[in-house]
């Protein structure tokens, strides 16, 4: 008989978020799903305990602990009755009932992301391979459960290494707890039985005559051949409809179901129930599927003696990393893949760890025991390196790691270092063109440069602008990660909205006729200032009318473009002006922006001497003029606007 350890991570969607964002522990968390009709329903949730009775730890009261999640499926957090599938508003109201309306205000609401949940669970599964090579995420074997929350580990052969099953189960649960994850574990003969036991650890303990543990008991072992009959029928991994039917005929325990004539079950409750019973008893084998996606390479090196990072130069450390990186890249490059994200872990020296550890703190259960030998409870220092495009270049990766490390606080001494490839992607094999090689190489160099920059400045500091349709010029672009500007992010797409350009474009004409005309590119300057610069009008009145821009005098008078103005210590004379283009917008994100823009052509009449700043500005201007046409009296084409509110004038850009 095999022995299966099932680890249950209750309310995994919430736990995943809590483990990656500690701030969430201060308030209620709801993970929601949008229904087709637009209503939001709750998928998973966690509500902090009411800070009623000050606990021993004092400070920790009022925080969400992932452990609250396991308090029971129907009531979590002081009897707030919420169930999955409940409308969000209703769930919030139910919470407000117990915790007061302020709890709603603090609530953090996130959209459901099953794929990310699954990926993160896979990550945990990989990590669990330290207990046994045979690890599977529940439901990977064609199971119907849509939201896996459990891992199955085949520990038949490996339990002995961990000091027996009891100890293994405890170790697994507590090492996960050290990673900030709340799990319940149970070992039994079949995945089905272990699943049931893991979900009802308390109940089993109580049946075994243990004193009530109030949810603190987190692992249990069902002896070989032991039964789980007394557990509720929910332990059978059934859908709600089947459970409802069982409830209607008055059956609520697994034993109750087992006592029903097996022959009559299929036609009444469907084949699933029969299958589940068979899986529970082991009549039907439930093989654990290996983890999907193939293995991403990892490599590690343990030092004989703790390595002092202070005493090691960067080059020396890079020498240590090199073989590890090479070991990781070899299988990838053979498969035509490259790394897009990797993780470097520096294991803290045990001495240091011992110093850090206070006696009696968390982890006492596992780490101090003999079984704690291989499980580090003080987290290693983790360096995450991400790439914009897949790569197998060891030198490049080593440099990126070095750049990251130079910005981090590192432990003094380390025991070992390991590298794990977290994500990989296909290295695009592009067809090389005869004369395109240079360009190709340049492309790659740009990418490397970007990554180096990102490594030094942080990924958020490197971006690429992308045009966005927005009436306010300084908002007409957005920053996207480099290399993605060409791709559509799906959220904001540029709408070809100037319907006047193609009047017979089909049915969209009517829709477009309401849509705002976004300006043609030629009406936007090539060089736009990040902030508009004030200009000082000197003489208002009619400027000379130019031949190409015929404007009525009346209009000019109305627009009131200044004939002469001072800008950057120089007096400009306006030759002609085109406009106005009125922009009124932005009311929904701040104060109104109301401006009348003009395109003016102007020449410099005089340089106002005096201010040093003006001089430099002027010099630059002069230099620019020399570089261009060589004519100092070059005509400047400026984009200026008048603020409708107060009539102040600004320059916002220069046309090339």
């Amino acid at each position: 008989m095999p022995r299966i350890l099932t680890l249950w991570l209750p309310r995994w969607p919430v736990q995943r978020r809590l483990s990656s964002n500690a701030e969430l522990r201060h308030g209620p968390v709801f993970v929601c799903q949008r229904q087709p009709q637009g209503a939001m329903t709750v998928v998973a949730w966690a509500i902090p305990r009411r800070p009623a009775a000050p606990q021993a730890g004092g400070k920790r009261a009022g925080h969400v602990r992932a452990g609250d999640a396991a308090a029971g499926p129907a009531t979590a957090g002081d009897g707030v009755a919420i169930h999955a599938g409940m409308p969000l508003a209703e769930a919030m109201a139910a919470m407000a009932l117990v915790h007061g309306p302020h709890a709603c205000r603090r609530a953090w609401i996130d959209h459901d992301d099953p794929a990310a949940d699954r990926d993160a669970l896979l990550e945990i599964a990989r990590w669990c391979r330290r207990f046994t090579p045979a690890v599977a995420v529940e439901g990977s074997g064609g199971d119907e459960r849509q939201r896996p929350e459990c891992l199955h580990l085949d520990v038949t052969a490996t339990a002995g290494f961990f000091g027996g099953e009891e100890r293994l189960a405890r170790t697994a649960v507590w090492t996960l707890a050290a990673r900030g994850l709340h799990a319940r574990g149970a070992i039994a003969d079949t995945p089905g039985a272990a699943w049931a036991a893991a979900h009802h650890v308390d109940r089993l303990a109580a049946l075994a005559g243990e004193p009530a543990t109030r949810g603190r008991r987190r692992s249990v072992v069902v002896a070989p051949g032991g039964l789980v009959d007394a557990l509720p029928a929910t332990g059978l991994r059934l859908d709600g409809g089947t459970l409802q039917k069982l409830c209607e005929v008055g059956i609520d325990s697994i034993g109750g179901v087992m006592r029903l004539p097996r022959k009559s079950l299929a036609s009444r409750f469907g084949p699933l129930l029969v299958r589940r019973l068979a899986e529970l008893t082991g009549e039907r084998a439930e093989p654990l599927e290996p983890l999907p996606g193939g293995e991403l390479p990892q490599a590690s090196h343990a030092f004989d003696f703790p390595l002092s990072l202070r005493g090691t130069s960067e080059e020396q450390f890079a020498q240590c990393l090199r073989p590890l990186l090479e070991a990781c890249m070899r299988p990838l490059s053979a498969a035509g893949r490259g790394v897009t994200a990797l993780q470097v872990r520096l294991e803290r020296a045990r001495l240091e760890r011992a110093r850090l550890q206070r006696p009696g703190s968390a982890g006492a259960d596992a780490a101090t025991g003999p079984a704690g030998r291989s499980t580090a409870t003080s987290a290693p220092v983790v360096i995450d390196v991400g790439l914009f495009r897949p790569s197998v270049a060891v030198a490049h990766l080593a440099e990126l790691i070095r750049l990251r490390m130079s910005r981090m606080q590192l432990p003094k001494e380390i025991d070992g270092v390991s590298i794990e490839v977290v994500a990989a992607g296909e290295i695009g094999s592009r067809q090389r063109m005869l004369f395109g090689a240079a360009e190709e190489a340049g492309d790659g160099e740009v990418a490397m440069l970007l990554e180096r920059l990102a490594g030094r400045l942080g990924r958020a500091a490197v971006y690429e602008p992308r045009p966005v349709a927005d009436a306010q010029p300084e908002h007409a672009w957005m920053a996207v990660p480099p290399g993605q500007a060409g791709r559509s992010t799906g959220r904001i797409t540029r709408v070809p909205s100037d319907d006047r350009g193609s009047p017979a474009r089909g049915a969209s004409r009517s829709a477009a006729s309401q849509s705002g005309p976004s300006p043609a590119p030629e009406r936007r300057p090539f060089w736009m200032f990040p902030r508009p610069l004030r200009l000082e009008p000197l003489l208002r009145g009619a400027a000379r009318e130019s031949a190409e821009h015929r404007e009525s005098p009346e209009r000019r008078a109305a627009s009131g473009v200044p004939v002469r103005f001072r800008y950057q210590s120089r007096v400009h004379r306006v030759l002609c002006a085109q406009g106005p283009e009125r922009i009124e917008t932005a009311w929904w994100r701040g104060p109104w922006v109301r401006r009348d823009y003009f395109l003016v052509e102007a020449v410099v009449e005089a340089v106002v001497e005096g201010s040093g700043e003006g001089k430099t500005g002027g010099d630059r201007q002069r230099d620019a003029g020399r570089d261009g046409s060589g004519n100092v009296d070059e005509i400047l084409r400026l984009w200026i606007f008048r603020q409708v509110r107060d009539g102040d004038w600004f320059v916002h850009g220069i046309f090339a």
Partner: protein
Amino acid sequence: MPSSRPVITSPVFRSQGAGPEGPCGLPRYAELHVTSNFSFLRGASHPEELVRTAHALGYAGIAITDHTTLAGIVRAHGAAKEVGIPLIVGATLTTIDGEALVVWAENRAGYSNLCRLLSLGYGGIPAESGQEQRDGTAAAGALAENEKDRGPVSCRLPRDMVAAHAAGLRAGVPLAAADGDWRRLAGWREVFGERVCGLAEVALEGDDAVRLERFARACRRAGVDVVAAGDVRCHVRARLPLLDALTAVRHGGTIEEVRARLLTNGERHLHEQSTLLARFASLPGAVERSVEWAAACTFSLDELRYEYPDAVVPAGATAAGYLAETVWRGAAKRYPDGVPEKVCGLLEHELALVSELGYEAYFLTVFDIVRFARRRGILCQGRGSAANSAICYCLGITSVDPARMQVLFERFISRERREAPDIDIDFEHHRREEVIQYLYDTYGRSRAAMTAEVICYRLRSAVRDMGKAIGLSLDRVARIAEVLDVGDRVDRLPERLAEAGLEPDGDTGRRLTALVGELIGFPRHLGQHVGGMVMTRGDLCDLVPIQPATMAGRSIVQWDKDDLDELGILKVDCLALGMLTAIHRAFDQVEAAGGPKLTLATVPAEDPAVYEMVSRADTVGVFQIESRAQMSMLPRLKPACFYDLVIEVAIVRPGPIQGGMVHPYLRRRSGEEPVSYPNEAIRGVLENTLGVPLFQEQAMRLAVVAAGFTPGEADQLRRAMGAWRRPGVIDEFHRRLVEGMTSRGLAAEFAEQVFAQIRGFGEYGFPESHAASFALLVYVSAWLKCHHPAAFTAALLASQPMGFYAPAQLVRDVRQRGVRVLAVDVNASAWHACVCHRGGEGADGSPPRSGKGPGLRLGLEQVHGLGAAEGERIEVARRDGLFGTVDDLARRARLGREALLSLARAGALASLGMDRRRAVWEALRDRERPGSQPLLVDLADDEDDDEVELPATTPREEVIFDYRTSGLSLEAHPLQFDRAGLAQRGVVTTAEAHDAPEGRCVAVAGIVLSRQRPSTAHGIIFLSIEDETGAANVVVRPEVWQQAEAVARRAAAVVIEARVQRRAGVVHLLATRMERLVSDEAAGGGEAGLPEGASLPRMSRDFC
């Protein structure tokens, strides 16, 4: 109605408009391209606002050209007439290949063409004859397509369809300053000839000068006029934020997300003429030409002549002659002992007025509908002001005898008003569709359609849409929408926002409040009026566009009932009334049980037993007087005759309550206050109601006899009551009333009092005629309840949902009257509940009649999840003999597993000799296509079942099962099982609470039956709760309600601490605290994590 008038800041009346070209003061611009908010989510101003602003700016005219709709045109017309500015009727069309075209009606023919074109585009009418075959299918296709996507109906206009209806229309092509302009212009020129122009529209987009030049060039090349226009979307610049928000709603995103589709500035509003002259200076003549074009479109909605269909008059007779003949024949039938003199006089007076105003055909049409209904055996009765007409009584349209009531024909038809009389007829709820389809059949799709109802933004919908648009998260929006109460006005919004956790004074809060304030009252979509049918002699689609309604088989006109009123178009309201259905069913049940054959007219009148029952407030299920408010009034009023019922129906209404008439009336009735009249004329008016005006008619007559109004003026007064809140109106009538009365020697104090009372009717008051029509149904239903409780309850159960009470209360009530109620059973129940005889079989068994009156057998319809078709199969199959086993039932009635399960859960298989769990077990077996899946043959079991031992059902489980599956239980009340625990907590039963002395504090528990928040009650909530001893009325003050809002709103059962209040034999519990009732067992059941298995479902009917 628009909630706010346009605020026009410093309108400049042609101040600078007098340029060198024209004489001073001549208006020189007419706006030809205007989108109002009836182009849903495209325009940001009401038509009235646009028209008034255009007038204030001194325009020569304004067109309303909404997107393929004329829905806003009547409002614009009314406003234009009021301020005196020419209105050009038009629409913006978009052909299926995407070309936009603005068209205006030059004349009546052009208008007809436009209506017809739009109707065809929507598929609202079948295509014209000749092309019947081809286009008929096309129209059907369009209809089907529209029904498929369920979105707003779309108007599909092929180019040649537009071309075929071009006569009498002028067209403008909005220019795009692109190369294709002239080609489009030239194309439309082939269709419209000289009657097409290019619309030059600029809005400060930077290159306006270039654009204008291109416009001119394109028009020159195509050989058409270039005309200035504005593509106006709102009347003032300040509406730009709302327009942006509406754009976001239309594209289903936040403003931030749809940035690309927003206007870049707010120039598309109505500008001063001087601005426009300057703007179009480089296009000489373009502005002036807009006036020429506007002047060429002379059509006005006043030209519409409505003609009533005349098909109902037999050959050779005139309408007037036929009507008179029919009326007198009817009168003879109504009064077998001779028509009373009073009625004769009334009839002659009315007939004269009808023929003077030419409404004969209308009466005959309504008569025809009623005759049709009678022929089909559909109960019907006129309601509303029509009951003021002796003609209607004699034609059988209404049932209120003018000999017994004071009738006021001017309330119904008046010479001054010259507007359509309005006859509303109630039909049996489930058979009204027959009447509507009869009308469609008689008049054809192109001549009959239903009235539209313009569904407007209200607070909650406005908050939802605007909140999403400005980027609030969905859950935040949902939260705000949830804390809003139905009765909330805009001014309470900040408070509510705070409640929902949104800072009302923050930027977002202020933006939301401002947008919502503007949006409320905006039309949102065209719905279907509950029953208004419009019929015409000629084609209706020459008068107004017809479009398909969202409901299959219905079409609607684009105007609502106010629009139709404004243009004098007659309509007949065919309404559905559930109580008529119930009464009809009760009559049938009485007859089936061997009783007499009853009709509305043959129910014995003035039965003292009925009044005695009504006076005890024993009126659960009785029409109109079963509500909490009515029931608390009954013991004080103690109705003793028919007229008392009329008063009872009318008095518990917002009008009399707010007018402060209820208490004076009650005091006078009980003799606490003397009844006096200032003079004899007033005595004549108010004698019936002890000197207190309770009905609209009395207010009108009072104005006539006391203040010297003419009957027509009095009717204006009534109409003005509906618009009291509009400033100005009320003051004018106030002055005239008070002056009129004081000049006739009445005390000013009395005059003010009368005015205050009349003002109350502005809220909501009943006309006496209407109350009388309803009172008749009150009496009939009370009579049935009194004498045939089983039949009456059976009929009510069959007509659910209806009234205030759920089946559980109706059944409890009838059981209290000693009627034995039998559970649903496949071997006894029909689909509907029916009367059976004690110990007897059921509807189809032989009734061995024994002793104590009939019992009531619940119907299969009570079983949740069972379809009517399945119920019918059970009934049919049972004729061959009773069912012996579940298999037998499944086979003979061809029932699927779900149906069997529903029956089993509801305990309807009891007669097959098994308890509920066993029945569910049996029903669960898969019987679908036995044998067709060979693999499953092994799994099929028949013999083993006997071995199965299922746990027995506890009584509590039985009851919960009952409530979950049929909404009621005959076994026990769910609270019974918690009683011991409740008693420990000091909770008493409702019966004990009722016996408690005034002022005592008690705690009671119960299932919530209903929640009500009457608009007159200042936010007080009325809750009815029920436990095993009976129901109790709980009054919840707003502060208590707010404390426990979540409980109060959704809990299935509650525990309430309250103080006992008794008044005139009625006991109220004034709640001081409330909490959810969590029963011990239910709490325990939750642990197993079973999906809601053991909990009680929510049962209440909520009206708040």
